[in-house]
């Protein structure tokens, strides 16, 4: 950035790359997403191929993470499982963000009864600890991955709504929004063209952090038998299967857990970096 004009992105990048951990996490996330997309080509074995002769084999050059009770290759199952975890994590936060951001924007922009209604509803959602709300929703809708996505998005919504409402309230009074208003911009234009972009940096940071939490919640629900059902190679479900073999086949417990842990860790480190770069309060 010598003589050139400093773009907002250039400024962001300049700050972001100072956080080495976030940079590394970003690289790993790209690799992880690539692996998930290319899973059938990357995975050494068919994740569903049963071979009782290979039941619970410890890690070896042929099976780097060993095999499970049914002789299925654990590494291949983890690789295919990354598709599920990333999809569930991303979709549920996306749905929660779209609904939450819209509600927050409406709430902050219009105020009054609408604001009260939306904010009280989010208070009620906050009154249930996240995972309990998810369990209640799954109890109503029945177990399964789609219902887990619904459940996790519902409890992501209120926080998005609050973040956006807060920044909408302050942006609404800002000079440039008033200027736009005075030259006759429509309410819709004010909301979506002028205010919304200003709220996005907070949304992006929370979005990244939330994906990690959502992946853990979804895996927990599967572990509890409420999410993905066997033989789906979902990480939480794999850990549930491993429970009966602790002390017998420890690799069954260790590897799927490492997959969840590292994925969530990278999302959190990446989110930290984004926050440092986007939040004006942090130098």
């Amino acid at each position, binding site marked *: 950035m010598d003589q050139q004009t400093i773009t907002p992105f250039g400024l962001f990048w300049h700050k972001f790359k100072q956080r080495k951990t976030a940079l590394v996490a970003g690289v790993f996330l790209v690799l992880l997403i690539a692996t998930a997309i290319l899973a059938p080509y990357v995975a050494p074995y068919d994740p569903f191929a049963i071979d009782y002769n290979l039941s619970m084999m410890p890690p070896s050059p042929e099976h780097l993470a060993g095999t499970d009770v049914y002789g299925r290759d654990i590494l291949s199952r983890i690789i295919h499982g990354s598709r599920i975890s990333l999809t569930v994590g991303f979709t549920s936060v996306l749905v929660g963000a779209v609904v939450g951001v819209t509600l927050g924007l409406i709430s902050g922009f219009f105020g009054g009864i609408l604001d009260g209604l939306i904010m*009280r509803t989010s*208070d*009620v959602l*906050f*009154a*249930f*600890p*996240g*995972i*309990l709300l998810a*369990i*209640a929703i*799954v*109890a*109503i809708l*029945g177990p399964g991955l789609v219902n887990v996505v619904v459940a996790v998005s519902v409890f992501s919504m209120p926080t998005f709504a609050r973040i956006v409402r807060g920044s909408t309230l302050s942006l609404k009074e800002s000079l440039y929004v008033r200027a736009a208003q005075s030259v006759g911009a429509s309410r819709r234009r004010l909301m979506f063209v002028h205010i919304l972009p200003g709220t996005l940096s907070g949304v992006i940071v929370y979005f990244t952090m939330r994906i*990690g939490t959502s992946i*853990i919640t979804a*895996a*927990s629900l599967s*572990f*509890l*038998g*409420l999410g993905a059902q066997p033989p789906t190679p979902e990480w*939480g479900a794999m*850990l549930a299967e*491993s*429970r009966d073999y*602790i*002390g017998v086949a*420890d690799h069954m*417990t*260790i590897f*799927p*857990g490492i997959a*969840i*842990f590292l994925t*969530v*860790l990278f*999302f*959190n*480190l990446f989110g*930290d970096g984004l926050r440092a770069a986007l939040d004006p309060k942090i130098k």
Partner: protein
Amino acid sequence: MIRFFLKRCLSMIPVLFVVSILAFAFVHLLPGDPARMMAGQDADPATIELLRQQLGLDRPLPVQYLRYIGNLCTGDLGMSLRTQIPVFDEIALRYMPTMLLAMTGMAWSVIFGVFFGAVAAIYSGKWQDYLAMFVSVSGISVPQFWLGLLLIQLFAVYLGWFPVAGYTGKASELVLPSITLGATVAAIMARFTLSAFLDVLSEEYISTARAKGVAERLVMWKHAFRNALIPVVTMIGLQFGFLLGGSVVVETVFAWPGLGRYMIEAVAVRDYPVLQALLLLYSFHFVFINLLVDMVYALINPEIRYE
């Protein structure tokens, strides 16, 4: 002060009202006819009709709701479909183990969280800081059920220091589950303490203390640490609700005889009265804890009261 407390208490009423409606509606949100669901699949129409009358499901919804609230006030939470024992008794049996687990988890997560956070702040920018924050971000990223399984593997199966699972009243049985339950909160506390500590360190009275020659150790522990703890105290309350939620997973891993595992069992066998009661109980705890936090905060920080 009293006015603030009263106002804050009154503001809870609508939230509690909606929560109770949600818990009430829970049975009605279930797909299909609740009476048919509760009677079981092979029940004949006469049995279902009888059950419907017994449960009052044939009356108008507002009447049903009032009856539900009336029953709640007398401690009547209905019968467990599975055991035919009053839900109240089933919950009473499991309440203390869950609270014990949550309190122990909270206690050690505060101790470790505040310690790591303070270390990170005092050694800001040094390796101790990075290590403490690495441990903290790992604690946030680790799935509790996996941590539990690993601890069982290492400390119960291989080293044999603690029992694998279950609870019969011995303190040694409490160690692994409470560590598992508290890990995430400890990590959150560490981050929170760090930022609270750094905020305080940039205050002018810290510079003043340093300028007049107070020993650095005394500045840290007497001037900074105490003030940094104020926001941390309120955080404890907020995180307690999170801990209660986490107990669902941890109790399942450790076969802990508490409310969380009971809830999962109830979901599995579709024991709806139990689920309804547990949802209500958990959310009431959450709402009351938030109230308590606000009050403690108002006590510590007078600015809040006059808003």
